[in-house]
């Protein structure tokens, strides 16, 4: 069992209780077992959507990872003009992917590989973040590109678990793909132990203290996992550092009319001169700055270390709420759907596992 995913199942919730939190794995299981067609909407930060057709996954999208279209356009594989033409020709009957292939802009295998990579990245983004709720919408059409993927949910879960375990392995420097904003360290090129690849050069060019792994992945049109792993390595080598928050805004202030309050300052360690440690040319600040590391509490994703999953019939059946049920429950409990304060993978109590 991997340390990253040694997650206990979420506690059962009474039917009349607050919004039920389902783990990602638990939510996927019924859709796969009952060979459903529909969308599994995962709310949280960044959250995402898993599209099913007859029980197999056909797409996974998340605000936390570039989708196939973003990968195609940002990487320059498809020009904006070609994309516009393909959309005009294929949007009406949902065959844009087929149009791209028919116009020989992409090979069918290449398009399928990109869509599969985007789906895996989407699942990784969902699982690496905070999961608040999962709602199944049955019989809803999906997929913008309509590329016929047929990813087995259990394989998707196993691959996602492998990625999380690799990224949060004890020997790695943990990093939040969404929250941690990075900056090259002084003398970054000299510090680099590995070959300065094109990806690494591009990453260094775009890191400015405002951008996270996810932001760089979108800018480059590269997969979230690939970019996050590379930045994790660069972090370990001291090539980049997590940028300190100059002035942490803290939690939201009191309601209007009440006294405004600032959250406690979470200044990073500073050296004797008052400069942040990572600027002083010594050890990068992240090595000493445990409070910036992802705080990954067990339980939210529902992943288990004993994957592959047991046969569906042996697993407890969890009832997925429909949208109508969710609306009814939310209407009865206005605070039920309120987002948590920390909309990051390091948020409280809804994480995937310990680093």
């Amino acid at each position, binding site marked *: 069992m991997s340390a990253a995913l040694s997650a206990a199942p979420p506690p059962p919730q009474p039917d009349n209780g607050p919004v039920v939190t389902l783990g990602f794995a638990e939510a996927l299981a019924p859709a796969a077992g009952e060979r459903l067609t529909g969308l599994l909407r995962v709310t949280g930060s*960044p959250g995402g959507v898993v599209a099913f057709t007859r029980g197999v996954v056909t797409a996974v999208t998340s*605000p936390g990872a570039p989708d196939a279209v973003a990968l195609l356009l*940002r990487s320059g594989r498809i020009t*904006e003009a070609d994309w516009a033409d393909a959309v005009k020709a294929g949007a009406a009957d949902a065959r844009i992917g087929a149009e791209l292939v028919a116009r020989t802009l992409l090979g069918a295998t290449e398009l399928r590989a990109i869509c599969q990579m985007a789906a895996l990245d989407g699942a990784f983004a969902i699982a690496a973040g905070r999961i608040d709720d999962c709602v199944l919408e049955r019989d809803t059409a999906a997929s913008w590109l309509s590329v016929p993927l047929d990813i087995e949910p259990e394989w998707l879960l196993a691959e996602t678990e492998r990625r999380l375990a690799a990224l949060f392995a004890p020997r790695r420097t943990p990093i939040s793909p969404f929250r941690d904003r990075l900056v090259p360290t002084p003398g970054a090129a000299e510090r680099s132990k590995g070959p300065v690849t094109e990806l690494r050069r591009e990453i260094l060019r775009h890191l400015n203290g*405002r951008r996270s792994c996810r932001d760089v992945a*979108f800018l480059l049109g590269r997969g979230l996992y690939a970019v996050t792993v590379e930045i994790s390595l660069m972090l370990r080598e001291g090539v980049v550092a997590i940028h300190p928050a100059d002035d942490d805004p803290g939690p*939201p202030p009191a309601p209007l009319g009440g006294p405004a309050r600032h959250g406690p300052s979470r200044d990073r360690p500073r050296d004797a001169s008052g400069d942040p440690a990572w600027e002083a040319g010594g050890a990068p600040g992240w090595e000493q700055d445990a409070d910036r590391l992802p705080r990954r509490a067990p339980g939210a994703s529902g992943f288990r270390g004993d994957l592959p999953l047991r046969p569906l019939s042996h697993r407890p059946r969890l009832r997925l709420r429909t949208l109508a049920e969710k609306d009814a429950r939310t209407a009865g409990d206005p605070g039920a759907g309120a987002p948590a304060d920390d909309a990051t993978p390091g948020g409280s109590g809804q994480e995937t596992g310990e680093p």
Partner: protein
Amino acid sequence: MNTNDEELAAEIRRLRDRVVGITDIAVATADGILITADADDMVNPDTLAALSAATLGLARRAGDVLGRGGLQQTVAQFNHGYVIVQAVGELALLAVLGDAGLDVTHLHRESQAVIDRIDHLLTAPREPAAHG
């Protein structure tokens, strides 16, 4: 910088931290004068403020003339991202730039309370910063 300015800057930074995909934010007057911004070096905040004011004014006028009611927000989607402008009361605006992954629904949900607080900060009496 006085207390209100600091709180204004903290509000927009907090919004950027809470919604993945936001790249730049500006608060400006409804006629396009920049009040504060949290922007990348790829974006000129004054230009963002001016263009956002023009966008908001045009959308308001269109809604008014065409009988669509009060304006909630303008959302322009591009191949590589979004430009979203929301009114802050009658006299100011919040402009948000996002990349292609921005969750517009999530942003709309998160920004409502932020807009209320920004409106309050812009209209509240200004407090001098404490020195010493």
